[in-house]
C-alpha cells in the first residue's frame, strides 16, 4: 500500500468510528416502552418499511418529481458504485479496459445527476431557502468524488489525488447531512416499528 492508500484508509476508519459513535448513541438513548395494546405485526411492518413503503409507486416524492427522483437514484447508485471501485483499487484487481470505460461512464452519469440536483438547489428559490452551506458542500464533495473517480479510472496517474480527495469526503461525512447514510436505516426501522405496532403497515396495496 502506498501513502495515499493509507491516508484514505485512515480517513475511512475515522469516518466509520464517528458514525459508529452516533449509532451507539441512538442505541444508548433507547426507545421508551409502548404501553398501548399492539394490533399489528412489527416485524412485517419493518420489512415493509424497507421495501413496499419505499416503492416509487407509493411515494409522491418519487412519482410527482420523476426527474429529481431519477437523478437521486443515479446519484446514489454512482456513489455506491464508486465505493465498490475504491475497494477494487485497493485490491489492485486488474479488470478489462471495457469494464473500466463503462464504469467511468456510469460514474460520470452519477456525477451529472448530482450536478443537476445541485443546480436545482441553486436555481429554485424555495430550495435555496431550505438549504444551508452543508447542503452545497455535501453535494459538491460527492459529485466531485464520482467525477474524480471516473477520471482516475481512465487516467490512473490521478489515482493518488482522487484518493486524497476521497479521504476529505470521508472526513467530512459525519459532520453534515451525509451522515444520513447511517440514520436512514434507523429512520426506516422506527417507522416500521411505529406503524407496525398500530397495524397501519404493512399496507396491502390493491
Amino acid at each position, binding site marked *: 500500500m502506498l501513502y495515499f492508500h493509507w491516508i484514505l484508509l485512515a480517513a475511512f476508519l475515522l469516518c466509520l468510528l464517528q458514525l459508529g459513535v452516533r449509532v451507539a448513541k441512538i442505541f444508548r438513548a433507547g426507545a421508551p416502552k409502548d404501553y398501548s395494546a399492539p394490533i399489528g405485526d412489527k416485524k412485517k411492518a419493518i420489512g415493509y418499511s424497507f421495501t413496499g413503503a419505499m416503492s416509487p409507486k407509493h411515494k409522491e416524492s418519487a412519482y410527482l418529481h420523476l426527474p429529481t427522483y431519477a437523478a437521486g437514484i443515479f446519484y446514489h447508485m454512482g456513489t455506491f458504485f464508486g465505493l465498490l471501485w475504491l475497494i477494487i483499487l485497493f485490491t489492485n484487481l486488474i479488470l478489462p479496459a471495457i469494464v473500466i470505460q463503462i464504469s467511468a461512464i456510469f460514474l460520470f452519469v452519477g456525477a451529472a445527476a448530482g450536478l443537476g440536483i445541485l443546480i436545482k438547489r441553486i436555481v429554485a428559490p424555495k430550495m435555496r431557502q431550505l438549504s444551508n452551506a452543508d447542503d452545497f458542500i455535501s453535494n459538491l464533495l460527492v459529485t466531485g468524488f464520482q467525477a474524480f473517480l471516473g477520471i482516475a479510472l481512465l487516467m490512473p496517474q490521478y489515482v493518488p489525488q482522487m484518493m486524497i480527495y476521497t479521504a476529505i469526503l470521508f472526513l467530512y461525512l459525519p459532520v453534515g447531512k451525509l451522515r444520513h447514510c447511517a440514520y436512514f436505516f*434507523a429512520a426506516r426501522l422506527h417507522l416500521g416499528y411505529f406503524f407496525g405496532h398500530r397495524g397501519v403497515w404493512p399496507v396491502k396495496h390493491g
Partner: protein
Amino acid sequence: MGKKLTEKQKTGLGKLDNMLDARLETALNSCVHCGLCGTSCQYFLALGDARFIPAHKVDLVASIYRRYHTTVGKIAPKLTGARDFNDETIDEMVDTLFGACTMCGRCIAHCSIGVDIPHVVLACRKMLSEMDMVPKSLMSTVNAALETGNNMAIPTEEFVDTLSWLEEDLQMDLDDDNAKIPVNEPGKKILYTLNPREPKFFPLSISAMAKVFHKAGESWTLSTEMYDVTNYAYYSGNDEHAAIITQRLVDVAVKLGVDTVVLAECGHGSRSHRWEGPNWIKEEYPFRIITTVELLAEYIRDGKIKVDPEKNTMPLTLHDPCNLVRTGGIVDEQRYVLSKTTTNFREMNPYGRESFCCGGGGGNLAMSEYNERRLAIGKLKADQIKATETEVVVTPCHNCVDQLMGLNQEFKIGVEIRTLGEIVADAIVD
C-alpha cells in the same frame, strides 16, 4: 455561543435534552433537505410559502439540535445551518409548528428518507409548552378540559338535561319506552364517550348512536364524570395534562366496571386515548378500547343490527380523519359500513391513507389565531368534495365535521356533513 440564554429558553432546551431518545435523535439527523415533501403538505400546496415545506419545519427543530448538541454546530453554526434558540426562532416555531401544521402525517410516507415529521413537530410543541408558548386559544381549550372535565366547559346539569330530553325524543321516535340513554350505570359492557361538541351543538349524533346501541341490544352507559373523547393536551404538547385527562377516563371505566371503552367519532381522540394514553399514564389499560367505526362495522358484520342501504340513496362521499387512518390504520371499516348502509358512495381523490387533512387537525380548530390560514388550506379539501358531485360528506370525526361545515360555508360547496353513526342510524331497519 450566541446571546446569553434566558431562563425560559433554557427551559425549552432542557425539555429537548430530556426528549432525545433514539426516535427523536434519528428524526433530527435524517433530513437531507431534498424538499420533495413540499407537495405532500397542504399548507405548502395552498399557500406556496417555503416555510411550510415539512423539511423546513423539521429543520427549525433540527437546527436547534445541531446548535446545542453537535460540535460543529457549536463551533461553526453557519456551516450546518445551526440556529440560536432566540426569540426570533421561537416565534417562528410557534407560527409554523402550531399555526401551519395539522400533524396530519401525510408527509411521513412520502418522505424520501422516512423522517417522522409530526413526531419532530410534537417534540417542538412540547418544548414550547414547557416555555408557556402554546397559543392562548388552544391552551384555554386544554384548561377547560382540566378544570371542568370537558373541553367545552359544559356544566354537568346541562349535560344531564340534554341527555334527558334526548332520551325522551328517542323513545318517541322509536315508540319504545325501553330505549334509554344510560348514565353512570355500573356493570355495563361498554362505556361510550362523546365529543363535547355533540351535547353542545350536535345532540342528534348522540341520539343516532343511542338508537344503534338500542337496536343492537347493547349493554352500555355514558358517564357524567368523564365523557370527553378529546385530549387537546396532545396537541398543546403537555404530557402531564394529557395524562390527567387519560387517567380520568381510565378511572371512570374501572369504577363503572366496563370491559370496553368505545371512543366516539373523533380522529385525535381515538389516537390520544387508544395509542398515546397508555404511554402518558405509563400503564396498560385494564379494558379493551375501540373506536365507534370499528364497533359499527362489528355490529353490521355480526348481524347485531339490520341495515338497508336503500335508506341512504343520496350521492355521498367520505372524509377520512388523519389520525384514524394514517396513524390508526382504520381505513376499510368505515368503507365496509358505508357499503352496507348507502347505495351511492363515491371516493374523493386522493382518499384513505393518501387523504388530505380537512385543515382543522393539529389543534388548529381550537386555535382562533390561525382561522384565516385554516380555512385557506381547506380549499384543497373543498375542491375534492366538489369534484365528487355528492350531496353528503360523511366523516367519523366531530372536529372534521366542524371544519368541513366551515369549508362548506366558505367555499359554497352545498353539501350536508354527517357522522358515520348518523348514517348507520338512518339505515337501521327492524
